[in-house]
């Protein structure tokens, strides 16, 4: 275990240079692209030149580049990603605090949907390999994988919201409902505060975005589970089990466990990507998460916000990769620490 601990510590330390490289890149890109960030954020609104100068001063844009670089870095260490260029006095860290739980909630829900559907369809396809069902599942995986999220989202909204009137079209909660925000994860908040009206509504709001994203992501799992399980089902140990008269269901369970390793790896990677915010899903459902936030900030030319979010993402991706590596190291003894 000491080896594992050392390995994990090393991996954790590797996050630092990763974040630093990414931050440096973003910092440089933000400053070499043409145009004045303050003027761009203001648009054509008239502001006298002397006041423009004051705004640049206030945002530290007149400081030498190295000062800007290290001051920001010092802030990042304290989880301070600077202040918005467009919304004066608004801290980027506060925005992340508000937006990240929405992304986390959607990630968890769509993760459950995608893994659920992906595993079920993959197992079915592998067990009935070569049958019509297998073909159907393979077609499903390709179709699901290539679906365009806004299109699928709109179709689901049309069916479940506009035609059947069962689910809301967008957002996280009916604005008429009050909910005390403890964690920012609305489903969890509703349970914690025993606000059952809010729980029902939050779940109803979660269904369509989670389903949309989940279906699209499930395609990859279907293929992966099918391929690995098919391979496991014809392996020597399965033949040995069969020869000993072990029941098929039990054999399947063993084979499945064996084929899960690459699936778990993919789960981790996918989670890392999802935590960066599912831009298309969030936009389609007006889901106030990190993806839609980044898009809004790019559109508003809020340079400091974009910079902050990218640095935050790099942290998240680093963290999730670390966890994936840890899982991988735990389950695959061939990994050397």
């Amino acid at each position, binding site marked *: 275990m000491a080896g594992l601990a050392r390995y994990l510590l090393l991996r954790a330390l590797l996050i630092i240079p990763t974040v630093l490289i990414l931050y440096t890149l973003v910092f440089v890109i933000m400053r070499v692209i043409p145009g004045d960030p303050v003027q761009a954020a203001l648009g054509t609104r008239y502001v006298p030149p002397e006041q423009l100068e004051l705004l640049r001063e206030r945002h530290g844009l007149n400081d030498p580049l190295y000062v800007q670089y290290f001051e920001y870095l010092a802030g990042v260490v304290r989880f301070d990603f600077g202040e918005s260029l467009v919304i*004066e*006095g608004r801290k980027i860290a506060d*925005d992340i605090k508000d937006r990240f739980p929405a992304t986390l909630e959607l990630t968890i829900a769509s993760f459950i949907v995608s893994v659920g559907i992906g595993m079920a369809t993959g197992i079915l396809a592998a067990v009935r390999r070569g049958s019509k069902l297998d073909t159907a599942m393979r077609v499903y995986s390709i179709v699901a994988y290539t679906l365009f999220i806004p299109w699928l989202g709109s179709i689901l909204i049309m069916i479940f919201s506009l035609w059947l009137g069962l689910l809301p*079209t967008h957002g996280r909660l009916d604005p008429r409902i*009050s*909910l005390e925000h403890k964690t920012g994860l609305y489903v969890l908040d509703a349970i914690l505060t025993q606000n059952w009206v809010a729980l029902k509504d939050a779940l109803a709001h979660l269904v369509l975005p989670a389903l949309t994203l989940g279906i699209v992501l499930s395609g990859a799992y279907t293929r992966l589970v099918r391929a690995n399980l098919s391979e496991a089902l014809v392996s020597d140990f399965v033949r040995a089990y069969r020869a000993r008269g072990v029941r098929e269901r039990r054999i399947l369970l063993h084979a499945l466990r064996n084929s899960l390793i690459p699936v778990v790896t993919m789960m981790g990677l996918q989670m890392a990507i999802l935590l960066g915010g599912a831009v298309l899903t969030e936009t389609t459902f*007006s889901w106030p998460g990190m993806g839609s936030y980044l898009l809004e900030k790019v559109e508003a030319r809020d340079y400091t916000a974009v910079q902050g979010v990218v640095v935050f993402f790099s942290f998240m991706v680093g963290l999730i990769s670390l966890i994936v590596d840890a899982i991988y190291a735990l*389950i695959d003894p061939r990994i050397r620490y």
Partner: protein
Amino acid sequence: MRSRSAQSKTLIGVAIIVIVILAAAAFMMRGGEETQTTTTQTTPQTQATRTTEAPGAAKEETQATTTTPAQTPEETQTQAPSERVVVVGTTDKITELDPANAYDFFTWEVLSNVMAGLVTYDPDTGEIVGDLATEWKAEENGKVWIFKLRTDAKFADGTPCTAKDVVRSIERVMQIQGDPSWLVTEFVDKVEAVDDYTVKFTLKQPTGYFLSVVATVPYFPVHPNYPQDKIVADATWGGCGPYMIKEWVRDQKLVLVPNPYYYGEKPKNDKVIIRFFSDANSMRLALENGEIDVAWRTLTPQDITNLQQKGYNVVEVPGLFIRYVVVKTDAGPTSDKLVRQALAAAIDRQEIAIRVFKGTVEPLYSMVPAGMWSHVDVFKTKYGDGNIELAKQLLAQAGYSEDNKLKVELWYTPTHYGDTEDELAAVLKEQWERTGMIEVEIKSSEWAQYVKQLGDGQFMLSLLGWYPDYLDPDNYLTPFLKSTANSWTGTGYANPTVDDLLTKAQVATDQAEREKYYIQVQEILAEDVPFIPLVQGKLYIVTQPDFKGLKVSPLMFLIYSSLEP
């Protein structure tokens, strides 16, 4: 090597740990109620405040909670059954809920509903009428303005709103020097409270349209909780207008309830909820699903047509937004007045309105929009619309021919004004090239770069838009035509006669006299052509079929108090 069952247990264990860690991280990041932007007011008397480092005087009186003490457990989950609630959808965003720095259309609309100014616009007549001020007078030819305030105005927590609050708030704007502060600092030299209910402004120079300026948001008195030296982006203390902010979740919802101490007519609803959408499509679907009552800015022209066909109530609002071409007057071929006139003559605005904007805009023939006093269709009178023959004559006089074509560059920015911009540039090129004597090269650059190039005077011809800061012809003429104020446009236009007329119009207090000057300025504009007006925007509001009480102020702000669910 461990057994497979041990491996799977480890797997499950690690997966659970990951989820728990992430949930815990989210929980810790929220940091309880202290760092939330979700703010709620408990009762009017004990106004809750956002608690994020409330600086200076901003001491919270109660912790932010999500319910009012008077509410029953049932009410904490949904609104009371008899409540008249209106849900308004928008794709706009709120920037800062602070008049010291807010400088965008939608935030000004919200602030106009939760705050009140000394004067305001009558939504029916469009004239300036008293709001917090009951009477006012100009002295020393418009250099000194004295306002008498009403004595019954109060903030949402019952604190009286006096002359001291007006002075403190305006001084705060001057001290903070936020984006719109020039609306105060360019005009006001000194503001003082003569007594509890009298405010005296001493201006830097006499200003005839000062009342229009005073009607803008930076002049609104704010609650004493607003710190004197700092912008508070998520402030919910408000002012003494018809509403107070009950709940604010950035980019998700803003809940307004009537200010119980408001001196004016009581709102026709009990609650207004603003819902924020990431795009027009989700807003349209929410309207169709009955989740919102009103779809405000901005649905697409296609959505508006479809919704109208489905029986939704579509209301057209005359817009104050204008689009125009900036023409460089101090260098290159466009420094020749004949060339500029030819370009103006060849443009067919009707065609632009229909082909590019699908009829959602009106042709515009002056920089002052139609419907505003002093507006004259100067370009129509002088050049007509799409007058190719006149354009050819003018070009010939300037020395151009079909063999010796005028070569011009037209610049646009691809995303800032929406998807139609490249088409607008293409149609303009087509119209100019119809003369057979002009060759147009279209160029574009991204907004940040575009603005810089514009100010540096790098464009021969460029497309731009304008939304007014205050409702007066001055705001459509001075920033463009006065040589000391128009450097940002890069036109290089300077005409001492125009400068003189604009100064006279600024100083004069008599509207008839000012109108005379502005008409003269518009005539010179059509003669000199440093700008070519193109179209004037219209806005659309779509509501549920049976919805009533839609009222828009002359500044195009939705008046929430008249909305009837």
